[in-house]
């Protein structure tokens, strides 16, 4: 029994880390229409920033700095946000599919940097000794995992309610207006570039936070954690849960993570050890197939987009507006 609970906690912790990234991507894509295919790049920045700030000195040649956990979390969000700002200045004026090519290029380049700047990231040897949230306070492994899970629940809840308030505010409606009809929004005096940038930076900072929690969860980083497959997983989660819907983002994250884990276990149990690489390939093919079928037959995902109607609108009218969308 305790084994099942322990596994469930472990499973859900990773699922909630994905949920954080998925919520960040939902702000960018679901609400603003920003086609960010560089999710793994921002995840990487958050993860390595956290590791560098919080790991004990000597973990890599130029770090870490042994800072407290909370400094690492805030630091990783700030650094990822700044990186997103710089990337955004260069790419956010581009057409949607150019943005996709540019962001995937950023993600690939960042992985090359992580692999080759050994003094900062440990390079091919990896980055060891990344601390867990409550460090020395909790000795028992099970309790530490439980505490981590609890922390993830709090983080996801805070982000969820924060984003819900934001997308329902006038600010959130401007984002959707720009997504739907840029010239119309611009003619009302809203600068599309500025709003896109805000959404891009906040969403990327959230993905960076996901990366920081991932680093702390694993305790060890390798550049292999940041291939484009991670981006693909988060996108699949968002599309299947329902882009434009924060509940959908969380649901999709847990659901797809469950499918991913289950197919992985099945492949491991069924295939002989010499075939494990092929098992990994089958896992990706299977998730890809689900994505294709959803895109073809239910493009709105499980939950679909939620209308964001102002609280100031009278109740009767609100119902009509929500039905209309």
């Amino acid at each position, binding site marked *: 029994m305790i084994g099942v609970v322990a596994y469930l906690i472990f499973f859900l912790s990773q699922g909630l880390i994905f949920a954080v990234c998925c919520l960040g991507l939902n702000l960018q894509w679901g609400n603003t229409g920003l086609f960010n295919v560089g999710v793994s790049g921002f995840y990487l920045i958050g993860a390595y920033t956290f590791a560098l700030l919080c790991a004990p000195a000597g973990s890599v040649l130029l770090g870490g700095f042994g800072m407290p956990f909370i400094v690492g979390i805030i630091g990783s969000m700030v650094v990822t946000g700044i990186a997103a700002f710089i990337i955004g200045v260069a790419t956010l004026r581009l057409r949607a599919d150019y943005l996709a090519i540019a962001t995937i290029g950023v993600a690939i380049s960042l992985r090359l940097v992580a*692999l080759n700047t050994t003094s900062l990231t440990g390079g091919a040897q990896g980055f060891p000794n990344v601390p867990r949230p409550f460090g020395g306070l909790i000795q028992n492994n099970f309790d530490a995992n439980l505490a981590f899970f609890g922390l993830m629940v709090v983080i996801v809840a805070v982000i969820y309610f924060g984003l819900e308030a934001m997308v329902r505010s006038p600010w959130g409606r401007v984002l959707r207006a720009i997504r739907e009809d840029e010239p119309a929004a611009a003619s009302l005096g809203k600068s599309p570039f500025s709003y896109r940038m805000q959404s891009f930076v906040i969403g990327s900072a959230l993905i960076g936070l996901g990366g920081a929690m991932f680093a702390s969860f694993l305790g060890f980083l390798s550049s292999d954690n940041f291939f484009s497959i991670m981006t693909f997983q988060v996108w699949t989660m968002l599309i299947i849960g329902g882009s434009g819907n924060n509940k959908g983002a969380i649901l999709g994250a847990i659901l797809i993570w469950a499918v991913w884990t289950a197919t992985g276990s099945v492949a491991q149990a069924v295939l002989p050890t010499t075939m494990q690489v092929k098992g990994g*390939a089958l896992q990706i093919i299977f998730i890809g197939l689900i994505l294709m079928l959803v895109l073809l037959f239910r*493009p709105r995902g499980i939950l679909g987009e939620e209308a964001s109607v102002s609280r100031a609108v009278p109740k009767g009218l609100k119902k009509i507006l929500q039905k209309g969308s």
Partner: protein
Amino acid sequence: MILPQLIADGIVAGSTLALGAIGLTMTYDIMRFANFAHGEFLTFAAYFALMFVSAFGGVQTFGPLTFGWTFIVGLIIAVVLTAILALVLDWLIYRPLRRTNIVITLVIASFGAELMLRNIAVFFWGSQSRFYSTAISIHREILPGVRMSADDIFLVLLTAVLMILLQLFLTRTQLGKEMRAVSDNADLARVTGISVRRIIRWVWIIGGGLAAVSGVLVGLTVQISPENGFSLILPLFAAAIVGGIGSIYGAVAGGLIIGLVESLSVPIMGAQYKLAAAFIVMLVVLLVRPRGIFGAKS
């Protein structure tokens, strides 16, 4: 001293990029979406040819080249099968999604198709690198300071011949003219009775076929791996964008430029950052001149 050699290497790599980028720029131009799965045509073609070559073996080779008739037949088979693969992909995924009229859905689908195809290649052919022949291709000094293998020279010549044939096809045949008409203005072309559907089919056949030649040549001169397509997709996009989306001459020029940039970046940034060099050039072009060198349309 080393510069002529780097330029020669850049031209070899650039030739394969040019062949691959033509299909990418054509799909982008006529169907209006960035096909991330295009690189997988290169991967699959390399394996299609490998299956034929390893089934029939190649004992005798042409002079200094590392391959013989089986490879040439394998190359032709790869072109045909890859064109079929492109048509099947369009029929299964892209055509149904085109009806929904949401361009971005197509790009997401192509991103998913890329990962699926790459892993199908891993599943069937394994993840280790393969080669068409165990023969070592000898690099000889053909110009002062420039060493090239016979295979490299074959690659550059074949690319040049295909470019000339493509040019004749586009300017001299009815189909080629129709294709250019659709590229210029699809609505106007439709009004004059051109079947856009048929043109789209030919875009997949020609784009997929040229990608197949590129993929087999990469397999011949570098290696055959399931990662080939994905590791080339960024340089391919860079080539198409630098040249100007929709321009076939642009794709050729862009391919050569990106090949040269990658090669010349090696002594400056190190071989590990080749991909990043291609990306930076692409980003600069997007920012300074988004329509590329030869692109006419905005």
